[in-house]
């Protein structure tokens, strides 16, 4: 009976504005029962078509029913002694939303105008005295970039590790044995020596984790090596058991 275009509404307020316009309703005097019925019909239609109904629409359905009920009850009185229209909040919300919906049309127009303009595209041939700075190739950054960078750094590592451990068949236990075996013949060894024949980055990382594990188990100790950025691994004498 009603031709309602699906999925063209940005939200429940948008849908209500559609009903108001289509049925030439007075926004300041919304027939709540009628509009609730229309609203529910729309939701049922979505259900029939097996479309997901967003929570915001459901919330609005509840709100509409609440208003409907209040309309039939004695009116509440505000501090000035005036009757409170149960629809007032909804009307305000609709008007506020309408303002920005109109604005979005203007933005849309500005967008289409702006798309016709192209800024200068190629700067490679500009004569520059200063050497080109690699850093200037990158954009200005915001807090958002910072969070994204952090998430990326934190999330990529474990994923890679799980995947590659399987692939290379390296486990922390194996590497613990490997380290202990290496230390059987030598009192100490540095990390570079330990990782000497390791080609995959993951094997080195797993070995490093194994190393930390051994430190925690108090089986080995670490100390600074004379070389820059280097450390030595040495056996700890078993103190208990």
């Amino acid at each position: 009976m009603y031709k309602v275009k699906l999925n063209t509404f940005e939200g429940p307020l948008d849908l209500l504005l559609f009903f108001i316009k289509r049925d030439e309703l007075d926004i300041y005097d919304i027939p709540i029962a009628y509009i609730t019925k229309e609203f529910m019909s729309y939701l049922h239609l979505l259900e029939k078509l097996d479309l997901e109904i967003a929570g915001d629409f459901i919330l609005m359905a509840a709100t509409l029913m609440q208003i409907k009920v209040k309309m039939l009850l004695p009116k509440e009185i505000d501090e000035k002694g005036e009757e409170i229209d149960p629809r007032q909040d909804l009307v305000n919300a609709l008007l506020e939303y309408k303002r920005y919906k109109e604005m979005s049309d203007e933005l849309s127009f500005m967008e289409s105008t702006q798309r016709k303009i192209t800024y200068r595209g190629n700067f490679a041939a500009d004569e520059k005295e200063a050497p080109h700075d690699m850093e200037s190739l990158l954009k200005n950054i915001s807090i958002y970039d910072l969070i994204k960078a952090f998430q990326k750094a934190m999330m990529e590592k474990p994923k890679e590790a799980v995947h590659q451990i399987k692939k290379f068949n390296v486990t922390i236990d194996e590497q613990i044995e490997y380290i202990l075996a290496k230390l059987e013949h030598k009192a100490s060894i540095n990390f570079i020596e330990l990782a000497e024949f390791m080609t995959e980055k993951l094997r080195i990382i797993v070995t490093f984790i194994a190393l930390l594990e051994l430190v925690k188990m108090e089986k080995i100790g670490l100390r600074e090596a004379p070389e820059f950025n280097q450390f030595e691994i040495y056996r700890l004498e078993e103190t208990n058991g």
Partner: protein
Amino acid sequence: MDKIYLTVIEALIFASDEPIPASEIVKTIKDLDGEDIKITPSDIEATIDELNKKYESIESSFRILRIANGYIFGTKQEFAKYVGYLSTEKSKRRLSQAALETLAIIAYKQPITKPEIEMIRGVNSDYILNTLLEKNLITIKGRSETIGRPLLYGTTEEFLKYFGLNNITDLPKPREIEEIMKDQDFIDQKNKIMMNQIEEMAENETDIGDSDNEIE
């Protein structure tokens, strides 16, 4: 301002891949040629007009535009067909209605929190905020002092560039609620509907479940 700086200003704008503010042009010239050089942002502004007149005189396809509090060279709209055909920009999709709506709210109410945006739109706006953040049209501006200290959002320079605005104040103003009240759409209807009609309907409607059938 010495006339010799006309071309220097032109070169600086021409070689900048982002809108360059008048203050940065002034600073660059003073840093290089001395603090005593007489040049002000309003000199720059006048120079832009002069330069654009020159481009007009040779019927050039580009102009200096005032965007995002700065100056940038851009093609004239009438060449959109050719330029768009070449560039990868053409494949870029336009913003959705939801994105535009949310941007309008943020642009006018910034800094604004997510709950405030959702109050106005009446819908959950997580996804759309993420999209706008990804597109660098909005950014996080800090935290609100209200309960829960939610994040505050605001528009970026990229937003100004995207919509061709020089300044956020160049945005068309949203209509006041009073104006919307005077809107023809609503005025025309206002008198048509009688008060008791509402109550009548409310009385007639006993089972909402029935409305289901009306759709079919």
